[in-house]
């Protein structure tokens, strides 16, 4: 299973999907012009990953800005992760937020409400 590593750029987050080191992470800011195009590679990778029947996935989200279309894309990623879980894996969503950032924390809570997945809320200390 290949890794997917995308470095952080001006409008898009860092993405690290590395099953060998058990690292799954999306961090930084997200406001691409076309969210669908950017996140398609993540969704496609998760489709492939699902076929390897993983046992456990701890997926870290450490985002500090999400544009309105990115918010939909992240939802799609979470639902895909939920499918991975339905296939037998133990999936945990590690939702990081800056301790003084209500917006990102609340977005995580919205996602929890929507997906009913296992969420851990982790405040980043300054």
């Amino acid at each position, binding site marked *: 299973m290949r890794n997917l590593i995308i470095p952080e750029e*001006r*409008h898009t987050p860092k993405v690290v999907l590395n099953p060998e080191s058990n690292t799954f992470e999306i961090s930084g800011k997200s*406001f*691409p*012009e*076309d*969210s*669908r*195009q950017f996140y398609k590679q993540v969704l496609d990778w998760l489709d492939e990953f699902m076929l390897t029947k993983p046992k456990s996935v701890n997926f870290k989200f450490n985002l500090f*800005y999400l*544009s*309105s*279309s990115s*918010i*939909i*894309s992240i*939802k799609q990623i979470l639902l895909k992760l939920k499918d991975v879980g339905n296939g037998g894996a133990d999936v945990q969503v590690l939702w990081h937020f800056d301790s*003084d*950032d*209500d*917006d990102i924390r609340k977005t995580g809570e*919205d996602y929890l*409400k*929507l997906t009913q997945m296992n969420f851990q809320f982790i405040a980043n200390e300054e």
Partner: protein
Amino acid sequence: MPDTNSVAEKFNSNFKFLTGFYSGANKKLIASHNGELTQDKVSAIASVVENQLELYGVSKGAVKKVFNIVIETLQNILIHGEKDERGVRHSYFVVGKSDNEFTISSGNIVHNPTVDKLRAKLLDIAGHDERALKAKYMQVLSNGEISSKGGAGLGFLTIALKSGNQLNFDIQKINDSVSLFELHSKITG
């Protein structure tokens, strides 16, 4: 033959009016842009606004809200701003400070057949209180997909939520083809 100069004239005159407004007492022009917009310009403008607001000692929460509205407004122009008959995608964007209130204004072309739908959408949002807005937001989030244009239908709702529904708009017909859609949102610093 549609008079395209009147489109450029209308945009330039509105832009001039808005920027001129902020030369008054207790007012300051924070950022402005007139012309074609690109994704790189979007982040450049957003950075300028963020830095300026921090210089004015605006609270972190308010800076974040303004940044949010700036990105949504600019991306709305990028995704939905139309071209005139000469293929020019006119648009403008102005952020100004008036005492401790920040107003984010934008103008872009919309094709006349789409005006009624756009007006209805914004009037619908204006008619919702905060709780109803949040409910609508959750509904779109739950059902939402990303369109082929790259938008998700959450842009105006996001601006409305961040600004406490301090969202005003105006649609002015320019000629038989196009209208000017102007959007204003306010944040108290």
